[in-house]
């Protein structure tokens, strides 16, 4: 392999070991880290600087837009474009337009949350370099992995092995880059 690897990956047995290794790597000055675990580790995510507050914003904005479009289209269709006198009731019967507007707000917010989540995570993506690491299938079961990516300014294979090796990993492997 002539090109640089995707990164260096260490495998740990417990989440505590992973968290310690992340702290050590950060302490050593590495910034391009990614950790993998079989269940959510919210403390670790916070330490890695993940901020998820964009998700509720996506839902709120999508919900408001959806409600506005639904209310507006109901008004336009029933009061402007095709006014129909039903027993002398007002054409702009706003209370009757509320339920569908609220429901459609939820529809837009829900759909936007899923689509937004996938866009942020850049999923679906059926292949990824980390899948090439032997034993990585246990990241979805009972093993914890820490990866230092090759685009880290301090990336140096030997130094990384030394830092991560101090936290008794089960293995340290190089992740080959792929197209």
């Amino acid at each position, binding site marked *: 392999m002539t090109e640089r690897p995707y990164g260096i990956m260490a495998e740990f047995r417990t989440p505590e070991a992973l968290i310690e290794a992340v702290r050590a790597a950060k302490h050593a000055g590495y910034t391009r880290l990614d950790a993998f675990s079989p269940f959510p580790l919210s403390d670790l995510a916070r330490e890695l600087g993940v901020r998820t507050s964009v998700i509720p914003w996506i839902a709120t904005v999508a919900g408001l837009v959806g409600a506005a479009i639904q209310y507006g289209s109901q008004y336009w269709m*029933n009061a402007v474009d*095709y006014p129909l006198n039903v027993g002398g009731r007002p054409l702009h019967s706003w209370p009757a337009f509320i339920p569908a507007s609220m*429901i459609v707000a939820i529809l837009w917010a829900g759909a936007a*949350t899923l689509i937004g989540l996938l866009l942020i995570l850049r999923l679906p*993506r*059926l292949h990824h370099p980390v899948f090439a690491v032997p034993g990585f*299938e246990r990241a979805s*079961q*009972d093993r914890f992995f820490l990866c230092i990516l090759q685009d880290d300014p301090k990336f140096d294979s030997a130094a990384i092995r030394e830092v991560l090796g101090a936290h008794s990993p089960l293995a340290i492997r190089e992740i080959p880059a792929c197209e």
Partner: protein
Amino acid sequence: MTSDAHAVTSRVADVPLSPHFGWAWWLALLASGGLVALLGYTLISVTIIGVGVWGVNIPYVWGFDLINYAWWIGIANGASLFAATLVLRRHDLRTAVNRFAEGVALFAVICAGIFPIFHLGRPWLFYWTFPYPATFQVWPQFRSTLTWDFWAISTHVIVTSVLWYVGLIPDLATLRDRARRPIVQRIYGVFALGWRGSVRHWAYHQRAYRLVAILVLPLILIMQSTVAFEFAVTLVPDWHETRQPLHFVATGLAQGLSIVLLVAVLLRWGLRLGRYIDEGDVDLLGKLVLASALVSGYLYIDEIAAALLSGGLAQEATFARMTGEYAGLYWTAIVYSVVIPQLFWFRAARLSTVGGVFVGIAIGVGIWFDRFSIIVGGLQTDYLPSIGRGYSPTLPETGLFLGTIGLFAALLLLFVRFLPVISMFETRHDEHEEKSS
């Protein structure tokens, strides 16, 4: 914790991944498949011949179509509301029951969706309820509850599916990673969308999951109220009541909880998942079922009180339901949905499999009779003198009802067979927390 976590994953994941599943599952699938065939037959007959094959006629314009629609929607809403509440409260029970509570909700709403489409009479024109620029330049009339219902059902299907699927993604990845046969790996791999368990992804995933759960709460209340509005906005004396949304929401919750309990007890017994759905979980579910049955009881009293206060024809109509030709439906509803669940005051009844199945089915039956009583019993008293015709379901209507039960059972059986019925990542998380505390 490693060996424990591994044990959880394999115990739950081995179910969908095992190549053999036993004859009982095949037998159950065959039986429900037979009912699905019956559903197909009745749907084709109503499409070709028309709604004349049903027993509905003036004044009984609604029959099994709306009874079963309202009934399935009740199950869907009750189960969704329960699942979403558990996610938001981060309650321990969520790990055990959430996945299939969401599944129950999704399958019930699929069954519910069949009825309004086919009771249109010309089901292939259902898209007329959607506002699209038609050549005849007429728009749907949004002052009608029926158009609200179109949005409510479609939103319910989509948002319930999103909640269920977002929760499933990490577990699908586990199945992908544990599968041995390449074809199985590929199928789960496609649905897992390339999930790799990055801590960053987990953080967004958890946030999105909880957010969709928050969305479900108002959705359920609006959805079930929309169903109730379809009755409340009519001029039928017994239906024209502002208490209808409360009645439908609260009795629907009892019904959803009872079906979740039924499925929980059956899964626990059938898949031997006693360790993950433990006694405490079943006990708590039983208490919730009992509490919701008491609320139903309160609402039946409220119904009488509202009738006494309203007077006139509305009062006459409510009392006609309790004492008239269709009184049997009303009293059956009371016995099954309020009286029988009182068994759950006893701990032994809450914990026993037979007790759970019995009470779970009883509330389902009771609320079904409640919807029957509201729809048919409620229509017998109107401003016009009755023309003396009664309502009784015809064979195609009964077939339609049994068919949706078959469809629900078949979807549930396929779900149990091919997907993890218990959230594996939540279980791993819980065990880790227990270990470290």
